[in-house]
């Protein structure tokens, strides 16, 4: 190709200056959503911890055990959440292969989070089995209270203990999609 041809292309190219949309409202919304998502988890933890003074103010030792269970649950979830999230971030200007690797890291995070949920909730359920009968002991309708509460706890246990299984099932589809993207990138010579 000749220099004149290239110069003509370059002049056509650099002469184009189309309008860009105003982005500020959208950007501010995105930033708000991002912050909300980050804050939501720890807000829930904070709400759970805020109940502690009331719990520890009670006279019964059995109720205090609920407080310790809440502390242990929040600590385990928070430490696990922070530990799993570290190092998964995407550099703002990484190349497309980095982006694909990031998506795969996200899948790994979901898998680890599912395991975290399985074992932390299993611990919660075990604690509940020990603590709850002591709390309702002496109530007039203790049997009914235990039947209702244990039913719900069983449902919670089944859902959370099976989390790694259903997360893996859902992620298989995403992994196939990532593989398709990788093949497409190869076709596009990226």
């Amino acid at each position, binding site marked *: *190709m000749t220099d004149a041809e290239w110069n003509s292309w*370059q002049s056509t190219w*650099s*002469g184009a200056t*189309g*309008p860009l949309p105003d982005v500020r409202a*959208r950007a501010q919304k995105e930033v708000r959503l991002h912050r909300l998502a980050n804050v939501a988890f720890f807000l829930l933890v904070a709400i759970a911890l805020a109940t502690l003074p009331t719990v520890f103010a009670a006279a019964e030792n059995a109720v205090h055990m609920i407080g310790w269970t809440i502390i242990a649950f929040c600590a385990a979830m928070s430490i696990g959440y922070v530990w799993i999230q570290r190092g998964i971030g995407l550099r703002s200007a990484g*190349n*497309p292969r980095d982006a694909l690797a990031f998506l795969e890291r996200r899948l790994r995070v979901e898998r680890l989070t599912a395991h975290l949920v399985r074992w932390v909730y299993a611990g919660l359920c075990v604690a509940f089995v020990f603590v709850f009968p002591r709390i309702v002991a002496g109530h007039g309708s203790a049997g009914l209270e235990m039947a209702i509460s244990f039913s719900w706890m069983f449902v919670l246990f089944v859902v959370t203990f099976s989390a790694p299984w259903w997360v893996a099932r859902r992620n298989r589809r995403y992994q196939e999609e990532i593989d398709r993207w990788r093949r497409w990138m190869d076709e596009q010579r990226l």
Partner: protein
Amino acid sequence: MTFDDVLREHGPALWRVIASYEPPGAERDDLAQDVLVAVWQALPRFRGESSPRSFVLRIAHNRGLSHAWRRAKRPPPGPEPLEVADPRPGADEQVATNQRAERFLRHLRTLPLGQREVLALALEGLPHAEIAAIVGITPENVAVRLGRAREALRRSVEREEAA
């Protein structure tokens, strides 16, 4: 460097890169929004390790590629819409320039992405080393891709002129 500085100094270059991924229309506007949001969010992390131009063009290309991935999963779009004339006074000359550029961009958009991104950056006047840093390949690979892209683009233009 503020977001307004980026828009003032690199807005036209960003627009051209965006236009190399999408024909005029809502999809291009969406991509432009995505790119600008990404630049806006990334600016606080800019530490001057590269030139501001490389930084924003890199973001634009990465967003453009992500957009193209999503697009590839959908059915192919219909014929490209024509540019609508800008009704503002004194805009005729710019509209004519943009229409010439749109014809050129239509040919550019027929190239594989790997060639298109290299050619678009070369048209911005970036040296091979800088393009290599943005795209994540070696400068030698940039030269090879650029040569193939120029050849493919020339053939596409010739085919249209012959038709």
